[in-house]
Structures are given as structure tokens and as C-alpha cells.
């Protein structure tokens, strides 16, 4: 088993091919959200679900500014190119299965009930214990 992070981006290198969500009808938005819940349920049912979180688009950059000094903050940036919307963590048997799950997540309905085919970034965890070899 290996864990994978499925990252959803609000926008980024691979922008969505349809109207932004605030221009959808309430029914379309509801159907989309219901689908996300359905994906998580299905992963739970298969024994593959680890975690799912959505992130607020608000946020800021923070860094250390020397001992005894308050941290330096910057932002929020309305115009940041790439923004992570949320993620799912799954624990699956193969890389192929991780891709299949990501593709399913990407088939979420959008305007007119059509799959939005958004790009999902799939990243393997660096967790696999090193196999003992001599």
C-alpha cells in the first residue's frame, strides 16, 4: 500500500476549462459538492480513505525574522498564480489505482452536469519504508 496526495487547485498551471463555480446554478454547485462527498464515501467503503480537507483561499506568507522578533508576514495575495483548493489522501495498492481515483475525482459534475475534467495533481508520499537489502 502506498499513500498519495490528490491535490485540487483553484487555479494554476492547468486551469479549469469551464466557467468558475460562482457562475454555476445552485443546483450545479450542490451536485458538485454531493459528488465530492460521494467520492470520499466510496474511498471509505473500499478501505482507501485517509483524509480530505478543503482550504480557504485566504492565507498569507510567514517567515522567521530573527530571535525575539515577531514573524514577518506578507499577503494575502489575490493574484497568486496557483492556489490549492484542497486535497484528499488515499492509501492504495498501486500507482495505477491512485490515478484511477484521481480521474474519478476529476469527473465531478459542473455546468449542465457535464464532468469538469479538472486536472488533479497526484503526488506519492515519501513514506514507504526502505526494503531491507544487503
Amino acid at each position, binding site marked *: *500500500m502506498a*499513500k498519495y496526495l490528490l491535490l485540487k487547485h483553484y487555479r494554476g498551471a492547468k486551469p479549469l476549462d469551464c466557467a468558475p463555480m460562482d457562475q454555476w446554478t445552485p443546483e450545479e454547485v450542490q451536485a458538485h459538492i454531493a459528488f465530492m462527498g460521494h467520492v470520499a464515501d466510496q474511498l*471509505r*467503503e*473500499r*478501505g*482507501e*480513505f*485517509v*483524509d480530505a480537507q478543503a482550504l480557504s483561499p485566504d492565507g498569507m506568507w510567514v517567515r522567521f525574522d530573527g530571535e525575539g522578533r515577531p514573524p514577518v508576514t506578507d499577503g494575502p495575495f489575490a493574484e497568486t498564480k496557483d492556489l490549492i483548493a484542497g486535497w484528499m489522501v488515499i*492509501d492504495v*495498492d498501486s500507482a495505477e489505482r491512485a490515478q484511477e481515483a484521481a480521474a474519478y475525482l476529476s469527473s465531478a459534475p459542473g455546468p449542465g452536469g457535464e464532468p469538469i475534467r479538472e486536472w488533479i495533481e497526484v503526488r*506519492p508520499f*515519501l*513514506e*514507504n*519504508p*526502505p*526494503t*531491507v*537489502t*544487503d
Partner: protein
Amino acid sequence: MEQLVRDLVPQVLGVLVRRGADFATAEDAVQEALLEAVRRWPDAPPDDPKAWLVTVAWRKVVDLSRSESARRAREERVHEEPPRGPVADEDDTLLLLFLCCHPALTPSSAVALTLRAVGGLTTRQIAEAYLVPEATMAQRISRAKRTVADAGVGAPGDLRRVLTVLYLVFNEGYSGDVDLSAEAIRLTRMLDAASDEPEVSGLLALMLLHHARRTARWDEHGALVPLAGQDRSRWDTRLIAEGVEILQAALARDRLGAYQAQAAIAALHCDARTAEETDWSQILEWYDELLRLTDSPVVALNRVVAVGEVDGPLVGLRELAAVPADVPRRTAVEAWLRERTGDLAEAHRLYAEAAATASSTAERDHLILQAARLPGS
């Protein structure tokens, strides 16, 4: 009582399954029997705990299938009369182990089911060990049980699969509050006691010989210590002696297999008091043997390391050319060989490249350190 119960549960489960109970029902029945044991044993300890558990659990199986058949009275159910298991004198725990490693299961499902049903670990312990939510692990286990029930009890897994599952558990190491390596060793011991297949002994020896070096494999910060840099005084000589003895008995039966060959290599490493004393020529011979047995590209890569030690890095690099480019850690091996030829800048570059594609943080950190040790170009 806990240790007793952990030893008895798989045996009792095995008896029930052999008598014809389906897997899920049998497990529920054993759990109920255990609850009853907790209530009654303190006042009236049985003379034969296993027989007591079998009697009580079997009664529960009958009760459960009665209410089940009442509930599904109109349904035709094939599972009410499942095929009977293998011959009665086969060890019950063994039957259960084979069932848990059923060919219809994916390796990870087989691992989860084995730890639950044979290992007697709780779902929570298994979930913590594999860093997933308890509900996810519960679901994985119950799906696995359904898969086994659907596939039919008559077709348990083959021995090779059981060994693979046990080795997977072993390699998971220590996580959560469960020592999975120790658990794998315990189960493999059990299997070895009931089997006359030398590969089972080979796997047990391999586990013991790796386990003996476990504390030396990590430093106090959790960083990987390669074999050559390990403090050999921290190796467990008792485990090594046991592993070697088991291996020798297995090899004497003259049916060589991949686990015995790997154990032989591990034994040769354990035998060297210092890294310099390692008998690489013999190790290389065993790798030749192992490659003939497995034809695995990973083995071919590990063999190249032995070639590098015996015949030097230039011969090693020549043989590395035959190893496919996508074998994990190939770049790390190439870096090590380049370093030995004195091409430090290229070795630095290759270590950095290997770090970028490492599959664990421990391995990545180790490779970055190797790169940092050498001058860049």
C-alpha cells in the same frame, strides 16, 4: 491471558472454518466466546482453554447461522453449506493463515486480514501501524472477509503468497504501538513449526538475520546507517546464531529457494566482524544463485554492488549497463561505483539525482548526505 488468547484465537477460528463456518461468522463467534471467557474464566478457569473456546464459539456459530437463516429464510444461500476445508489433521492456525492470504485478495488486504485474524491485533492497532483511520482499516478488513467468503473457503492461498504477505508485514517494521517485524517473525515461526518446506525456514532465517541488525540500522536521529557504517557490537548475536542455525538446517534439505539464498547473503554479512572482513566473493556467488532463481532486476542491481566489491567499480559499471534504467536505486548504485572510480563530481551529481527520486525520507536524507560529502562540479 492475553498471550494465551492471541495464540488460541487463530487456532479456534481455524477449527470453526474447517467445520464449515464462513469466515465472518466464525470471527464474530470467536469474539463472543472471548467475551464469555472474560466473564467466566476468572471464577472457573477451564482445564483446556482451546477446547472450551471451540465448544462455546461453535455454539455461537450455530446460533448466528440460525438467526441468519431465519432472517434470510427465502433466500438460497450457498454459504450455509460451504465446502469443507482440507483434511482434519492439518494445523488449524495454518489453515487460517492460508485463508487470509487468499489469491483473490490484494497484498494489502491480505496483510490487514492476516494481522487481524491470525495475529489477533485489534483493528485500531493495525490502523495505527499503517497510518490510516480506524474506519478505513475496519472497512478494508471486512471487505477482505467478504472477498474470501465469496471466493470460497475451498481455495486458500498458496504457500508462496503466504510467505510474501509475511515478508510484507516484516518490512513494515515498527509503527504505532505494534512491532510488526516481531509479529511477522512470530507468525513465520508458527508456520515454520507446522510446515516442512525449507523456504519457510529460509524466510524465518532471513527475518531473524535482518532483525538482529535492526537497532544498528538507524542512528539516534532516525537516520539510515548503511551496513558498512553500522556499529556491529550492537547486532544481536543470539538472533544471528538462531538465524544461521535455521538456515543451515534448511540448506541441508537441498531444496534451494530465493528466501534461503537471501538469508545466506544476510548470514555472510552477519558473519563479518568488520565491513572489511565481508566475504564478498561468496556473497557474489549467492547473488548469482539468487538471480538464477528469481530473474529479478532488483536482484540484478544488488548483485552489481557485490561485483563492484569483488571485481572493482569499472567491472561493476559495465555490468550495471545491463540493469534496466527504471529499477529503483539504480542511480544510487551508479553514484557509489563512480565514487570508487574517483569521479567525485559525477558521483556527487548522481547522488543528488538519486535523492530526488528516493521513495522514503530516510533514503533521501542518506543520499543527500552522500552528495554533500563530495565536491560538486
